[in-house]
């Protein structure tokens, strides 16, 4: 839709631009083509982590509800087969509504997952934090103030630098309190689900991955839901915020949640195991450091710090 709008607006303003700028036609066409190419790439990459899964679920629900409604009408009509004896008023229990309510609980946490994934993808590698640290934009901005010898003006350089950094984080959409520890944020989000909800989510994800093994986004989502996010990813953002408390691999799975076997049971992402808890001893201490609640959970504390490569390699293409 956005592409359609931009095409429309571009066509309208194309002639005016040509007149105003007096640019050769071929150059203008090539600029427009480049713009559309990159806008397409950006919109494709901006697709959310859980959108395929959520659309699949909603579509299934809609189909099932539609069929059940039609069938219930026939069910009622077949229940009173005698002309002299109409059906009596009877409350019609719809047990499937309990399933839809359970599914609603799952939908509620999906935006949180998308946000966490997006933050981890953008800042999780720590490259951005390093670049920011090296560039010192705040220091450069306040360098002039430091050089002023009168009235101890240099003393306000540090507060201005800090204010600059905080404003910069706000501009980037990062909350210091909320995003200091992404793993903790993920745990808090998943803790809203009951054990039954988690089992259902695991089952749904298992179904989806078995049906569409090529959908990498949902495989990533399944991996994050079952195994949590890596320690390094939390560290990357924590370094940017300057919060040293954010450490640790966390698990979103509880002990009662068992991994649902899927068609392809191999590790779904490089560096993330499928959940057999083989490396549990290495990461339990990390979990204890990070979140007390997470230490009790998890067959999935299996990600060692050393063996895994970063699953979100967008900011580190060379790794």
């Amino acid at each position: 839709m956005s592409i359609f709008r931009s095409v429309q607006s571009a066509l309208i303003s194309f002639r005016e631009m040509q007149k105003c700028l007096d640019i050769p036609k071929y150059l203008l066409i090539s600029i427009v083509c480049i713009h559309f190419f990159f806008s397409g790439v950006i919109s494709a990459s901006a697709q959310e982590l859980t959108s395929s899964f959520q659309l699949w679920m909603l579509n299934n629900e809609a189909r099932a509800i539609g069929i059940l409604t039609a069938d219930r009408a026939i069910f009622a009509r077949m229940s009173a087969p005698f002309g002299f004896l109409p059906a009596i008023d009877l409350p019609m229990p719809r047990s499937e509504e309990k399933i839809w309510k359970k599914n609603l609980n799952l939908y509620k946490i999906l935006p949180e997952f998308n946000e966490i994934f997006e933050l981890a993808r953008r800042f999780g590698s720590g490259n951005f934090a390093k670049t920011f640290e090296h560039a010192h934009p705040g220091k450069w901005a306040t360098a002039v103030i430091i050089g002023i010898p009168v009235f101890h003006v240099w003393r306000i350089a540090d507060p201005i630098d800090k204010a600059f950094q905080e404003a910069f984080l706000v501009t980037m959409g990062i909350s210091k309190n909320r995003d200091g520890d992404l793993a903790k944020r993920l745990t808090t989000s998943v803790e809203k689900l009951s054990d039954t909800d988690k089992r259902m989510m695991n089952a749904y994800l298992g179904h989806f991955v078995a049906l569409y093994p090529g959908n990498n986004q949902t495989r990533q989502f399944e991996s994050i839901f079952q195994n949590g996010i890596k320690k390094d990813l939390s560290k990357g953002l924590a370094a940017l915020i300057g919060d040293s408390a954010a450490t640790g691999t966390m698990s979103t799975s509880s002990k009662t949640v068992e991994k649902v076997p899927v068609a392809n049971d191999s590790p779904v992402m490089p560096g993330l195991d499928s959940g057999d808890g083989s490396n549990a001893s290495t990461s339990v201490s990390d979990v204890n450091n990070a979140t007390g609640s997470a230490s009790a959970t998890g067959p999935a504390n299996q990600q060692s710090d050393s063996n895994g490569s970063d699953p979100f390699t967008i900011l580190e293409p060379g790794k």
Partner: protein
Amino acid sequence: MKFIKWSLLLIILLMFSACEPTEAFQIAYRLKVGSTYAFEVKSHVESHASSGEFDEKSPAEAVDTISVTVLAYRSGVFVLDITTGSRHFRRLMREDGTLLLSPGERSSDLPLFLTFPAADWPAGKVHRVDSSFDVGGKPVPARFEIVPSSRDAAKGIVSMKFAGTVDLPSDRAIQRKLNVKGSLGYDEKVGCPSTGEWVVEYSFDFANKEIAVIRPIWNIKETRTVSFHLQGVTQ
């Protein structure tokens, strides 16, 4: 000569035995004008939904009394005044159970009615009623079959069994079944069924299929048991 005579006698006896009329019933509504028939109807429904380890059962039960007053009878059609719970409506019904008119109800809401054959009905002969329901603009075939099984001459009760089914569209991913099974006791003295019980079973298995992979996602089952008996007839 004797052998031929005995053979002929045997053949004649066999022919007579073959021609002996089997038991036949005259089943039709023979309601008395001005009488009110009170039926107690019990209905129990259980809805069951499951998805993986999730399992949910929701039962509901209701008991009601249905009063059927026969207002008039003309040209083989009864005018019935029916009261059930908060509802009150009228139906025009033929002697075989076919509904002619129901002013207070939408025709799309009317059930597929089980009727009796007009002629003599031999025991064991299946009477079939075919119809169809409109589902999403497409007709879905439905049928009822009823058969008289036995007759209690002392009580004047003819026992019948019936079954119904709807051919709901199904494929490998989505399977739907709707069946009815029940029994009916026709009271010859009263001129209408006096007891009956039937079970309506519905199952819906929702799965996703992608190439060769089929994954079951939701299963929903519903069972409704309806029973009635005639409490009494008042003039």
